[in-house]
C-alpha cells in the first residue's frame, strides 16, 4: 500500500510542469537520436578525396583512374605530376587516398612483366582506411581480372578459361543484417539508448537525496517501499521514452525494426529498471544532488564504448571484458541492434534476466543505504 502512496507522491512532483524533469526524460533521448541521426545522415562514407599520380598516361592507366572516379567511394580531387605534390596533398589532408601509377604501366602489363600500383592512405582516422581497404579490393580485382584475361587470351586461351586462370577463386561476399554497411543501422539505436541513459541519470539522481532534507527517520521496510514507489513513475515514463527512441530510429532514419514489439519493450524496460536502480544508489549515497550527478558523469563515454556497440566483446582483453560486464549499456545496445536488424537477439533472455536481477539487487541496496544515511543525517541534525 505504501508503495503506491510513494509512487503517487513522486508522480506529483515529477510530472508537475514546473519541474521540467518529465520533458527531460521524454525529449532528451529523442533529441539525441535526431541529432546523431543527422550526423550520420549520409549513412555510408563515400567520396574519399583521392589524388592520382599517373606517370604513364596510357589507356590502361586512364581506365584504372576512371574506375576509381566512377566508384561512389572515391572522388578524384587532383592529378599531380610528382610524388612530392602527392605527399603534400596527403599531408595537408586535401586528399586522404593517393594512387600512384608507375611509368610503363601499360607496357609492362602487355609484356607480362608485372607492374606495381601504389595506394597510399592517410589512416590517422581509421574510417578512411576501412572504407578504402574494403572498396579498393573490388576495383583492383576487377581491373586485374580484366587485364590478366586479355593477356592470356592473347596467348591463345579461351576467354572463360583465361578468366578462370586469372581468378581461379572467385570470392562472393554476402553481408546479412546490414548489407549496405550503414552507420545509422550500426550506431544510432545504441546512441539513442545512451541518450535515454543520460536522461534517466539527470532526472532520477535527485529522487532520494531530496528526502534527506525532510529529516524524518523511517524504517527499513518503509525505506524499501519508498524506493520501489519512487521507481514506478520514472520507469513508466522511461519506457515511453525508450519507445520514442526506437520509433524515431525506425521511422525517421529508416533503420529496420524486424524484432517483436513486446521483446523490444521488455528489453528497454529491463534497462530502464536497472538504470533507475543504479541512479537510486548514487542518489542515496550523496546527500548533495550536485555530487550525486557529477560522480556517474565520468562514466558516460566509457559506458557507451565498453558496451560492445562498436568495439566487439570478443576483441576486448579479459580486463576490458570484466569492466564491460558492469556497464548497463552492455546488456542493451547490442541486443537492441539485433532486434532491429536481425529481428531477434540471441542474448535477449540472459540480458533481460541480468538487468532485472542486478536492478532488483541495487534497488534493495539503495533502500538500505537510504535508511542508514537518513538515520545518520536526521540524528546529526537533532543533536
Amino acid at each position, binding site marked *: 500500500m505504501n508503495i503506491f502512496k510513494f509512487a503517487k507522491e513522486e508522480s506529483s512532483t515529477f510530472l508537475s510542469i514546473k519541474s521540467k524533469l518529465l520533458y527531460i526524460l521524454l525529449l532528451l533521448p529523442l533529441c539525441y537520436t535526431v*541529432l546523431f541521426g543527422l550526423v550520420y545522415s549520409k549513412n555510408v562514407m563515400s567520396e574519399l578525396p583521392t589524388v592520382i599520380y599517373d606517370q604513364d598516361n596510357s589507356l590502361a592507366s586512364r581506365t584504372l583512374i576512371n574506375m576509381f572516379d566512377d566508384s561512389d567511394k572515391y572522388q578524384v580531387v587532383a592529378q599531380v605530376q610528382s610524388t612530392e605534390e602527392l605527399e603534400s596533398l596527403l599531408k595537408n589532408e586535401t586528399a586522404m587516398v593517393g594512387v600512384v601509377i608507375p611509368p610503363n604501366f601499360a607496357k609492362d602489363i602487355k609484356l607480362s612483366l608485372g607492374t606495381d600500383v601504389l595506394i597510399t592512405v592517410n*589512416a590517422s582516422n581509421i574510417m578512411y582506411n576501412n572504407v578504402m581497404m*574494403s572498396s579498393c579490393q573490388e576495383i583492383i580485382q576487377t581491373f586485374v581480372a580484366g587485364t590478366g584475361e586479355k593477356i592470356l587470351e592473347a596467348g591463345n586461351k579461351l576467354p572463360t578459361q583465361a578468366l578462370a586462370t586469372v581468378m581461379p*577463386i572467385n570470392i562472393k561476399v554476402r553481408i546479412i543484417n546490414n548489407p549496405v554497411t550503414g552507420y545509422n543501422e550500426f550506431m544510432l539505436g545504441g546512441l539513442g539508448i545512451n541518450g535515454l541513459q543520460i536522461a534517466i541519470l539527470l532526472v532520477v539522481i535527485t529522487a532520494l537525496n531530496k528526502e534527506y532534507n525532510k529529516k524524518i527517520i523511517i524504517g527499513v521496510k518503509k525505506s524499501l517501499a519508498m524506493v520501489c514507489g519512487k521507481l514506478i513513475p520514472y520507469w513508466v515514463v522511461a519506457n515511453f521514452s525508450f519507445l520514442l527512441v526506437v520509433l524515431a530510429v525506425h521511422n525517421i532514419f529508416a533503420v529496420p525494426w524486424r524484432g517483436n514489439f513486446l521483446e523490444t519493450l521488455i528489453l528497454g524496460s529491463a534497462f530502464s529498471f536497472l538504470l533507475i536502480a543504479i541512479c537510486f544508489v548514487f542518489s542515496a549515497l550523496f546527500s548533495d544532488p550536485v555530487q550525486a550527478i557529477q560522480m556517474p558523469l565520468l562514466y558516460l563515454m566509457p559506458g*557507451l564504448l565498453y558496451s560492445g556497440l562498436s568495439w566487439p566483446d570478443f576483441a576486448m582483453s579479459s580486463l*576490458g571484458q570484466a569492466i564491460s560486464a558492469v556497464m548497463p549499456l552492455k546488456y542493451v545496445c547490442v541486443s537492441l541492434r539485433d532486434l532491429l536488424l536481425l529481428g531477434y537477439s540471441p542474448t535477449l533472455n540472459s540480458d533481460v534476466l541480468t538487468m532485472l536481477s542486478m536492478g532488483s539487487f541495487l534497488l534493495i541496496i539503495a533502500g538500505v543505504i537510504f535508511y542508514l544515511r537518513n538515520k545518520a543525517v536526521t540524528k546529526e541534525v537533532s543533536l
Partner: protein
Amino acid sequence: MSWWQKFLAEAKNMLIKDPRRIIFLVGASIAYLVLFSILYSPGIVKNIPLVIYDEDNSMASRVLIQCIADSERFKITNQVNDQEVMNDLVKTKEAAVGIQIPRDFAKNIKLGLSADVLIFADGSNLVTVNAATTNLQNIIGTIGKGAGMKILQASSGPSNALDKVNPVNVKFRVLNNPTESYLNFFVIGLALAALQQGIFLSIGGSFLSKLTNCDEEEYSWAKLSAKIMPYFLGAICAYIITLMMASIAFGVPFKASIVDLMIIGTCFSFSVIGFAWLLAIITKNELIFSRCSIFYTVPAFVFSGYTWPQQAMEPISHGLSMVFPLTHLASCVRDLMLMGSSPVVYVNSIILLMLGTIFFIIARWGYKNKVKIQS
C-alpha cells in the same frame, strides 16, 4: 584584494577547499585515458569467430583453412557439414563470419574452372565486418594468385606465370597509423573529451558557488583573469600530463612539435573555460549546470568529427559542430601526435581563440547583469 591574492585564494579554493575541482580538472582525462587504453589495448580486432563449411575436404581447401587459422585476425570456432548450420551460427551470432568452400573446389581450380568461395558475414557490427571481409579477401586473393600461377606454369611453363596471373600488383602504404591501431586512433580524442568535461565541472563549481557574494570589482577583467588563471593553468597541466601519459604509458606515437601542441592546447583551454563560464551564467545553479554539461558531453564528441569525419556530415551538423571547441582540437591533436603535423593547427587555434573571446565577452556581460540583479 590584489591580483596575486585573488589568484592564490582561487587556487586554494580549487586545491584545498573544494578538491573536487582539481580532481575533475586533472583526473578526468587521465581516468579516460587509462580506461580506454584498457579497452583498445589489443589495437586491432583479433580472434573474429569464424565458422567453416568445407564441402570439398581437399588439399587445396585445407590450405585455405590453414591460412585463415594462421591469421591472428580469426579464430575458427566451428567446422560444420551443413550450410544451414553455418548460416544459423552466423545468424545466432556464435560466429561473426562463415566461409563456404564449395564441392569440387580443388578440382575446378585444376581444370581451370573458377571456384566460388562464399564469405557469409553478419554486418550489424561494422568494425568486425570490415576487418573480416578485408582480411579474408586478402587471404583468399593470395591463395588464388598462387593457384592461378600453378595452372599457368602447368600449361605454358614457368616464365612470367605470376605476372600473367597478377599483371598489376597493388601495394598499400598506410600512413600515420600503419598498424591500423584503434588505440592510436581513439584514446587521445576520448581523453580530450574528458579534459573538456573536467574543465567544465571545475569552472562550474568555481562560478556557481561564488556568484552570490561578488562585489563591483569582481567582474573587472583583471579580477576575472585572477579567478580563472588557476583553472587555466590546471587545464594546461592536465593536457600535458594526458598526452605524455598516452605516449609513455600506452605507446601512442608522439611525433608532434611541442610548440604546436601547446599552442592549440592553450587556445582550447581558453575557449572551453569561456564556454563553461558562459554556461555557468546561463544556468541557475550548479545542479542545472551539471545537467547541461552532461547533456553536452556525448554530442560534443560525436559532432567533433573525430570518428565520423566532418566531410561526411550534412551541412546542419557540420555547421553545429563548428561551435564546439572539441571539434577544433581533437582531430588536430591526433594528427599532430600521429603525423607530426596538422594542416589546420594554426587556423583551429585562431578559431578557438575567437570562440573563447566571444564566450568571455558574452559571459562577462551576463555575469555583470546577474550580479547586479542579485545584489
